[in-house]
């Protein structure tokens, strides 16, 4: 009876419900089944119990890929926050062409990741890259941005920051604009310096935004895929092999669907733990 009364409501939510069932609930449930099976798509599934977990525990390459991803996050998140906050602060002031700059910083966010990555591939190229040409013109040596195992992941983090920073600038701008101006006025009357205002008013007030940025960049960073897939294929020496790239290879290069699903679930658990940890450390309530 209620359905007949509320059919319009159910009709409106139906597209989402169907989408959710088809593209979220079903894949997740199916992946859960796969975790306990060996399946290469073409042959029938074979029940292996906890075999996939046993393999995961001994898979040094997966743990290396996790380490690589954490290394990426350690470079990427602080860099992203500092750069985004710096530019948001600048763009929050009165300056000529402010709209243009805001749009310009946001532009890389809407450009396809593949396009951006190919562009940076040309910039990073050891022999013919623009960055190395610039260094040579300045009388400096070439840098193996992507071919030096120690530098490849930092280079990717640099590129990812350039690509994503526009989004976080916008978020910080919103945060900055929501700080009540009377707090700054009061601080000025008390003789606070610019740094003191930033440290004791701006930062605490935009703490929810900082937390949001940290969480979003953590989740985004954990899903690092396109950049190493196109730039390095995971090399050199597996130093840029991210966890998602490794899962993709297991699933779609070698068709170890059960094992890839196990890695996926384990990885989701890792992400959840990290985000919970961040929530405890970063998020603080601000009361006025």
């Amino acid at each position, binding site marked *: 009876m*209620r*359905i007949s009364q509320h059919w319009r409501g*159910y009709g409106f939510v139906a597209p989402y*419900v*169907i989408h959710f*069932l*088809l593209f979220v609930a079903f894949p997740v449930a199916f992946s859960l089944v796969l975790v306990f099976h060996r399946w*290469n*798509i*073409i*042959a029938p599934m074979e029940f292996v119990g906890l075999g996939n977990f046993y393999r995961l525990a001994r898979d040094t390459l997966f743990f290396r890929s996790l380490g690589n991803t954490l290394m990426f996050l350690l470079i990427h998140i602080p860099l992203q926050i500092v750069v985004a906050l710096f530019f948001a602060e600048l763009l929050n002031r009165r300056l000529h062409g402010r709209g243009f700059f805001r749009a310009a910083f946001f532009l890389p966010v809407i450009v396809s990741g593949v396009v951006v990555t*190919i562009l940076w*591939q*040309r910039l990073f*190229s*050891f*022999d*013919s890259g623009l960055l190395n040409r610039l260094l*040579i013109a300045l009388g400096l040596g*070439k840098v*193996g941005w*992507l*071919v030096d*195992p120690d530098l490849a992941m930092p280079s990717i983090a640099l590129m990812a920051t350039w690509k994503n920073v526009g989004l976080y600038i916008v978020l910080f701008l919103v945060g900055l604009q929501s700080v009540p101006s009377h707090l700054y006025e009061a601080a000025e009357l008390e003789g606070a310096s610019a740094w003191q205002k930033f440290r004791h008013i701006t930062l605490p007030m935009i703490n929810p935004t900082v937390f949001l940025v940290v969480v979003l960049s953590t989740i985004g960073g954990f899903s690092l895929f396109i950049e190493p897939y196109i730039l*390095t*294929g*995971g*090399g*050199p*020496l*597996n130093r840029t092999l991210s966890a998602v790239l490794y899962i993709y290879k297991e699933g*779609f*290069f*070698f*068709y170890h669907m059960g094992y890839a699903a196990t890695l996926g679930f384990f990885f989701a658990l890792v992400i959840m733990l990290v985000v919970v940890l961040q929530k405890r450390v970063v998020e603080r309530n601000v009361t006025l």
Partner: protein
Amino acid sequence: MHFGVAGIGGNSGGFHRYPKRISLAVVCGMFLLMTACAPTRQRNPNEIIFWSSNNPYEIEFARIIVAEWNRRHPQSPVRYQPVPEGQSSEEVILAAVVGRTTPDVYANMWQGDVEAFARAGVLVPLDTLPGFLDVMYQRCDSSVIQEATSQDGHIYQVPWKINPIMMLYNVRLFQAIGMERPPATYSEFLSAAEKMKADTDGDGYVDRWIGYLNVNVTWWKRLFDFYPLYLAASHGAPLVQGERVVFNNRAARRVFRFLRKLYAGNYLPRDPMEGRQDPFLTGQVATQFTGPWAVSYLEKFKPEGFQYQFAPVPVPDDHQGPIFTYGDPKNIVIFNTSPNPRLAWKFVRFMIEKENDRRFLEMTDQLPRRKNLFRDPYFQTYFRNNPRMIPFARQARYVRGTDGCPVLKEVFDAISQQFEAGVIYGVVPVEVALEMAARRVRLIL
């Protein structure tokens, strides 16, 4: 959070009852959707569905032979189409296998994939079809038949075409360093590499190299560098035999050492060269390991006065006998979804008749995998008109495909990982690198 719960929590009984109906409706919808997608129509057993490669020359070849077949056999027509578009033809075939929408005949199956499909039971064992073995013995020599035979003793593929990997070289660059013929052995190659290495723009960095190997660790890249060199050094030995790893041998160690010397001497670049102007045509690299598909490309894009030739891949200094290489074979299979495998086989037999093989050669510049191709007078006119293809035809006698192994990609991946560590970066000795690759493959097998 709270407002959402309050909004729907007013009548909890109803809330629990109706979603079940909705779920049921959705499940029914999904079932209908899936059954609508499934091939419910009964296939006509007298009709053959044929998927060709999506290379335009092969599509044209398919069009012509299908028209010819349909003219001769109007009662059992063939419908053809290129393999549907996808990220790779392999993924498309996989999807078709899962959806049971595979064609009767597929002509472009990489030999390395056949064993996995055969194990999954989706291919027709062709040796059970009448006349198959007679055609095979007529067309192929015993080593090719042995190579095509699966681990269970059946044959699931018709050896169809090959594109032997050879060393393409820039004649003028070698003349410039005083060499009238290309390097044939490791010592000659290393010596040429030293002379070829140059800083042509004076920026203090090498920008002319003896060659370039793809530095990406993706498994199939090794099909075009390590594998041909390994086959050449080992007289065509396998990598794995059944459940046994056999690549950790003297030939593989020699190949790894040779390539390591090239990287250690900075004779090969570590920087990826893909995506930039062709380094071979711009004279930045003097050699490439490639197949006959390069001929039409080079003829189209070579600059004025550019001279190139093909030669066998380099071998160890004490090498005796023929030089084998990788043939990059693509074969024909019949899927078990075929309602009439005998008829499908009849069409395949027609497709690989001598006349059609010559037509295929002329239209695609790819070599049919048949014995004595180059010496057979029937094909001589083609080679007279296409002298660039002669080195490949000579090489065709000494090619190998891939081992019948269901986890071949992982074998190549293990080799590729250690190739990077031991050869490109030299962080482990080549002997250790090979042993580590062998150990990993033993675990997989």
